[in-house]
């Protein structure tokens, strides 16, 4: 385009030179001297530049050319006001950057389809009457469903498989695993990137045990050896055949246990009596089958199963199909959407601010606009011209926002809690890019349209006559810009209130006394392989005790203990127990968690004994079975009665096969400890059983080591000792208890930190907005102020006058913001703990902060107003 223009320009140049030359030649033919002829020709020709210019005008403008001219003109103007441009672009960059960052998270969680073919036909098949959350089913149910033909292209089961220990490949390593039926790969329509996949005989009980491994594990542990397929590797002491390597990033789209790197093929029995609900069922619905039909057909076998397992399956249970997309999205909660809303507020504030900038600039350009109108420019042309400028700024803001997003991306990602379901990594993609540029264009239009329309509706007469930046649209402009500032202040207050509520929630949770002392505690997990050295419970416990003793002997170590599960991590299902001699709970499901512990557990955690006695080394496998209970449990079961010496019988309601042989005697009551999360409002019923008397497996325990100093430096020593005792036992997830407590708040930290950042940005932008408007009004009223000073107004009075104008806007904005907060804060209810969305102290506090900032923003121009020299002010006008 510009090439074409350049050519034309050259041609014109040559054409005119030719004209001169030909004319001169003709004159020479008539007898003039060469120089004389040239002068004469030039004289007749006239001003070459002028000729060129009028000729050029004939070329005309296509829409594109006119647009490009606007762009050029806009760029020139933008370049001429670097201050204005910088403030506008920075403001937009913050607004757009915040939105883009959050959008990239929301995009991955909510918008992108799951990375599987026809993923909309992939469903989680679940029971609705299930206390654990309506997702898990048991093996008998799955087997019954599998017999129903014609509903699904494939129906598979999958469950998180805990961890397995890989030995014989460098250091022993504990690796997260998943168990799945062979149908799962058909449901997902994936096959291994390398290898042939599971074989039919491997899916049968008694067949070879097959696994798939992740790309990462393959590279890390097997140096990406393509011959791994078909080889046997040792996992927790059992040989397994590697049948495939999955593509990088593969995961089962169920937000539980997604870190798996090994997938075991389940060998399904033809019948099952196992009542435990650990299985997810996912299916690919056949074309032409509705979810309703599938639900109806799958509900029929439930009644029969109820007859078989009356305790585990209710008669009125229903079946419900949820798309896997919905299921994973639901787990993500509303926080990302709330944040997107908050980021939207920031952007609105930024838009209002930039609109205000445009308004004040349009005022100083009123003469230019008036002149152009008088010269015949149409109003639409002027609006387009002004809009082009704001669009350019918007686009620049969009690009800068992309940069802001890019720079802050790692920070935002580090905040996104791991349990937020996100399949496929959160990353910059085309959609994010388009989003930010789209925002740029939108903000350009949004912030430019009103000022452009207003500036172009010039009253020519007055504008040209007055000539100076004056009153011709001062009033109207003033009203619009005041309205913009008021809305900026209002929106900022809403964000501030939200941030304050979230921060108080987080602070409150951090202050929560969990009932144990998390300082100076190192924790780590170990899992024993099923080798001959650890094939009995006794051998395992002897190993732990030996390890425990070695650790206790280390300098600086005060106590060492091990347990089946740490506090804040107790997600044990309901324990069926009966309370002997108490008919109230006899034979009923009582909601109590339990853990196995070594004797030093309470000392290591500093959990005080309320009554009775603690567990000692004397409580062995051979002595009387005992149990300690939490205060809450004591109160719930016995009320005011004395639990000490009473008996609890584990598993008795489930029948002979599942119950312990004898009841346990309650020997003591421990202080309550927060067991599931810091957010819980009620304390738990918890039971403590000595490890020596465990009725369950003991192949995985968590150790904690209380030290006199910060304990994280101890990890290498611990690892060394473990290696010297048993080289094939891996040490997993060493973390201090303080870290675990902090980790448990990840879900809160993510929205809280981001909304606080947004609040701060909003406050900053609004302050700039207030400052700009008040500065402008002071500049406009210099004359008036000069007169007032000349007539004897004191500086204090001038100061008060300016401040009161600014604060009036801020107060109006604050009132509107408070009303809006009242409506919107309810959306935060899910995110808040221990504080009401309409907490008066928070509302008042946020308002005070906002007004203080507004006051500071007015103070500078107000001070400037007091320094107006009446002589200068009057002469200036």
């Amino acid at each position, binding site marked *: 385009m510009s090439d074409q223009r350049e050519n034309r320009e050259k041609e014109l140049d040559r054409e*005119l030179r*030719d*004209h001169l030359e030909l004319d001169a030649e003709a004159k020479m033919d008539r007898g003039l001297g060469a120089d004389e002829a040239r002068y004469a020709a030039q004289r007749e*020709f*006239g*001003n070459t530049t*002028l*000729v060129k210019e009028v000729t050029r005008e*004939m070329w*005309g403008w296509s829409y594109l050319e006119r647009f490009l001219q606007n762009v050029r003109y806009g760029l020139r103007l933008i370049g001429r006001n670097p201050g204005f441009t910088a403030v506008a672009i920075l403001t937009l960059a913050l607004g757009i950057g915040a939105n883009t960052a959050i959008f990239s998270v929301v995009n991955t969680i909510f918008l992108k389809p799951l990375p599987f073919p026809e993923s909309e036909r992939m469903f989680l098949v679940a029971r609705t009457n299930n206390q654990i959350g309506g997702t898990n089913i048991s093996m008998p149910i799955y087997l019954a469903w599998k017999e129903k033909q014609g509903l699904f292209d494939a129906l598979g089961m999958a469950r998180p498989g805990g961890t397995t220990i890989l030995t014989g490949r460098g250091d022993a390593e504990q690796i997260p695993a998943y168990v799945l039926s062979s149908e799962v790969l058909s449901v997902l329509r994936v096959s291994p990137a390398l290898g042939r996949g599971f074989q039919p005989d491997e899916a049968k009980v008694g067949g070879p045990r097959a696994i798939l491994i992740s790309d990462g594990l393959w590279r890390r542990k097997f140096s990406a050896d393509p011959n791994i397929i078909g080889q046997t590797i040792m996992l927790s002491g059992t040989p397994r055949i590697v049948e495939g390597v999955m593509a990088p990033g593969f995961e089962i789209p169920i937000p539980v246990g997604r870190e798996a790197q090994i997938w075991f093929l389940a060998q399904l029995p033809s019948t099952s009596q196992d009542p435990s609900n650990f299985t997810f069922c996912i299916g690919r619905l056949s074309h032409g089958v509705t979810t309703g039909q599938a639900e109806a057909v799958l509900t029929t076998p439930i009644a029969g199963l109820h007859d078989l397992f009356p305790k585990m399956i209710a008669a009125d249970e229903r079946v419900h199909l949820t798309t896997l997309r919905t299921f994973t999205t639901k787990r993500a909660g509303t926080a990302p959407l709330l944040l997107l809303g908050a980021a939207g507020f920031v952007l609105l504030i930024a838009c209002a601010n930039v609109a205000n900038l445009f308004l004040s600039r349009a005022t100083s350009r009123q003469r230019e606009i008036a002149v152009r109108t008088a010269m015949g420019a149409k109003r639409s042309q002027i609006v387009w011209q002004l809009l082009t400028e704001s669009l350019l700024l918007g686009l620049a803001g969009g690009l800068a926002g992309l940069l802001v997003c890019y720079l802050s991306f790692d920070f935002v990602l580090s905040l996104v809690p791991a349990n937020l379901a996100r399949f496929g990594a959160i990353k910059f993609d085309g959609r994010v890019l388009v989003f930010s540029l789209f925002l740029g264009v939108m903000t350009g239009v949004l912030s430019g349209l009103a000022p452009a329309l207003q500036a172009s509706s010039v009253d020519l007469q007055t504008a040209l006559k007055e000539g100076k930046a004056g009153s011709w649209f001062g009033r109207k402009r003033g009203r619009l810009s005041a309205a913009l500032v008021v809305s900026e202040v209002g929106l900022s207050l809403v964000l501030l209130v939200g941030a304050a509520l979230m921060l108080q929630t987080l602070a409150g949770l951090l202050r929560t006394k969990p009932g144990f002392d998390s300082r100076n505690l190192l924790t780590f997990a170990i899992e024993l392989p099923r080798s001959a050295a650890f094939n009995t419970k006794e051998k395992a416990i002897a190993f732990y005790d030996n390890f425990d003793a070695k650790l206790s002997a280390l300098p600086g170590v005060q106590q060492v203990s091990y347990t089946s599960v740490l506090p804040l991590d107790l997600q044990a299902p309901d324990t069926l127990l009966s309370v002997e001699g108490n008919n109230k709970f006899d034979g009923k499901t009582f909601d109590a968690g339990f853990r196995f512990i070594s004797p030093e557990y309470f000392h290591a955690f500093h959990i005080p004994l309320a009554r009775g006695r603690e567990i000692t080394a004397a409580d062995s496998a051979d002595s009387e079975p005992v149990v300690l209970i939490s205060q809450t449990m004591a109160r719930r079961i016995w009320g005011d009665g004395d639990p000490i010496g009473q008996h609890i019988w584990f598993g008795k309601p489930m029948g002979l096969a599942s119950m312990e042989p004898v009841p346990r005697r309650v020997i003591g009551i421990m202080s309550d400890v927060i067991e599931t999360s810091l957010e819980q409002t009620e304390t738990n019923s918890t039971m403590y059983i000595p490890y020596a008397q465990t009725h369950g497996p003991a192949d995985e325990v968590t150790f904690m080591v209380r030290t006199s100093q910060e304990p994280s430096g101890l990890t290498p020593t611990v690892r060394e000792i473990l290696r010297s005792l048993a080289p094939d036992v891996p040490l997993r997830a060493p973390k201090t208890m303080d870290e675990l407590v902090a980790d448990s708040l990840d879900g809160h930290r993510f929205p809280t930190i981001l909304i606080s950042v947004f609040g701060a940005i909003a406050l900053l932008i609004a302050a700039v907005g207030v400052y700009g408007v008040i500065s402008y009004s002071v500049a406009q009223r210099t004359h008036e102020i000069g007169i007032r000073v000349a007539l004897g107004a004191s500086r204090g009075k001038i100061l008060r006058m300016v401040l009161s104008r600014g604060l009036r806007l801020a107060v109006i904005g604050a009132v509107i913001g408070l009303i809006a907060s009242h409506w919107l804060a309810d959306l935060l209810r899910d995110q808040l703990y221990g504080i009401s969305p309409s907490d008066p102290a928070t509302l008042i506090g946020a308002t005070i902060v906002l007004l203080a900032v507004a006051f500071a923003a007015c103070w500078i121009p107000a001070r400037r107003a007091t320094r107006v020299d009446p002589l200068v002010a009057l002469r200036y006008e």
Partner: protein
Amino acid sequence: MKERYKNRIELLQGTLDFMILQALRWGPQHGYGISTVIRTNSHEAFQVPTGSLYPALHRLERKGWIASSWDTPKDKNREFKFYRLTAAGKKQLATEESKWKQLVTAIGRMMRPAEES
């Protein structure tokens, strides 16, 4: 008022356009050639200022009435920008011509109303 003013400009513009189209009726010509033709054909009555000639040429070209190309004339050894009539230009010239004749007749009648029979 404004409308009538516009008509007058159009008339003047039309005059120059007509003269250019006329000058090109005898074959392609460069800008200087066109101005010479107009001057000599009008017996030195019209001296077209270059500031009007070139804008007019470019305007007519844009309208599609004339076209341009770089050609080497027989007596020169380099290219000049030559304009020539297009088909649309020839048609335009015909209508302009009849319009002019009508106008001249009308003006003639106004000047010598007595000769009206």
